[in-house]
């Protein structure tokens, strides 16, 4: 009985955390695309990534959560902020000039995609997306992820590393000061 109470108390706690995370996630997502100043957008993205990391933790993917914070928040967004600060303030007025056909089409297409995905998920939701409770204690730990990554998905790992290397080289070339053609 007491374990049941504890479980339901834990469940309520998880629900609360989840609701907060979802609201922060979606709210910051909307903030990313609505702020006129890119710096704010980037800051909002941090909030988004943080709340996503919380959701990953709820899904018992702790290593991915940590990697999310370390890679995205720690490196990617820092780079964004760096470049935004480097480029300097360039405010734009995204909502001026009334709705163009482009904007209308964009809203239509994105909305259609959204509705379709939600419908698709909803069609699956009554049943096959109901997950049972337990996963193994190792699920999501670094050792487990490492084993899956380096044994089952070694090729993906290698290809990813090559992609990163190519991107690094590309970044260096793009950012190099020598201008052969000008």
């Amino acid at each position: 009985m007491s374990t049941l109470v504890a479980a339901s108390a834990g469940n309520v706690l998880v629900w609360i955390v989840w609701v907060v995370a979802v609201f922060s996630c979606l709210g910051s997502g909307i903030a990313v695309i609505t702020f006129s100043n890119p710096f704010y957008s980037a800051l909002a993205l941090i909030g988004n990534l943080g709340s996503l990391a919380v959701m990953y933790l709820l899904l018992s993917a702790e290593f991915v959560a940590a990697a999310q914070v370390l890679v995205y928040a720690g490196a990617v967004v820092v780079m964004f902020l760096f470049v935004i600060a480097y480029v300097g303030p360039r405010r734009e007025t995204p909502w001026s000039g009334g709705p163009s056909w482009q904007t209308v089409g964009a809203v239509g297409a994105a909305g259609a995609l959204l509705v379709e995905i939600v419908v698709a998920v909803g069609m699956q939701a009554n049943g096959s997306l109901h997950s049972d409770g337990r996963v193994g204690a190792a699920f999501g730990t670094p050792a487990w992820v490492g084993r899956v990554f380096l044994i089952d998905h070694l090729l993906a790992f290698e290809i990813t590393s090559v992609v990163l290397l190519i991107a690094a080289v590309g970044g260096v070339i793009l950012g190099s000061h020598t201008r052969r053609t000008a």
Partner: protein
Amino acid sequence: MSEPWWISIIKAVVIVNIVLGLFAYLTLIERKVMGRMQLRYGPNRAGPYGLLQPIADLVKLVRKEAFAPSSAIELPYILAPIVSAFTAIAAFAFIPWGPGWTVHGWRINGEVANVSIGLIAIFALGSIGIYGFIVGGWASESKYSILGSMRTCAQLVSYEVSLALSVLGVVILGRSLNLPEIVARQGSWLPYAAPEFIGLVVFFFGGIAETSRAPFDLPEAEQELVAGYHTEYSGMRWGLFQMAEYINLITLSGLMVTLFFSGWHGPWDIGPIWFVLKTMAVLFVFIWLRTTLPRLRYDQLMRFGWKILLPVATVNAVVTALLVVAF
């Protein structure tokens, strides 16, 4: 093994206060030590041997007017120091300082949070802490601040890579990202400073850069940038930045002790005291360096980070992995 949640909360409160106290007195120690090394006395007015100096500083900071530039962007300007200080303190939660005890049937662990990704979590929090510096400098709307925060940004991102690579050797030897496990393995073998000496050296350099200490203190180079990203800060907001820096330093020293000097292990079973002593010794080395070495130029700093430290760290990690596989 698990402990009741209320013990964790009590422990967290205690640890936070100890760390804050340590920060306060670290500032005093630094000034005293630097004074001695420069043939001065250092602060010696407040209390015997100046022991009340941190209290006096605190009172001064709290009472000082916290003004802000009129063009500053309000919310980020205020949040930035808080984020920095918060992440700095939070990172300490993962560092084990003792073996753990059982008191009256209650289990008390030797760390606040025992998670499988402890090491990554510390780095993740550290990388969040960077935002305090960047956002603070940017929100000040001041040239010096922006320059300072961009320097901080570049330097921290650069050296974070080497720092993370340098501990890979330890992770391979310890076969875990969980800090208590790494400490336990060292206790039963020998401190990883011996087999991972190169890793230790890289970690030390990376740590100096990550905490912006001399000789890598370019983000706050007074002669060039007034004070870097916190030029426009004053009062307790400035105090929070200072706090964040010093607590980062303490956390880093603690991490170094944990990873390379077998944490709380020592000849006698006095767990936490060993940990504190070792951490203080590392801190002393940091202060010592500050009085000894001149500052690098910025391009030298970058070149050192990318062209020397990073390759060395990579080779070290690879060689360690090969040796572990071979034996």
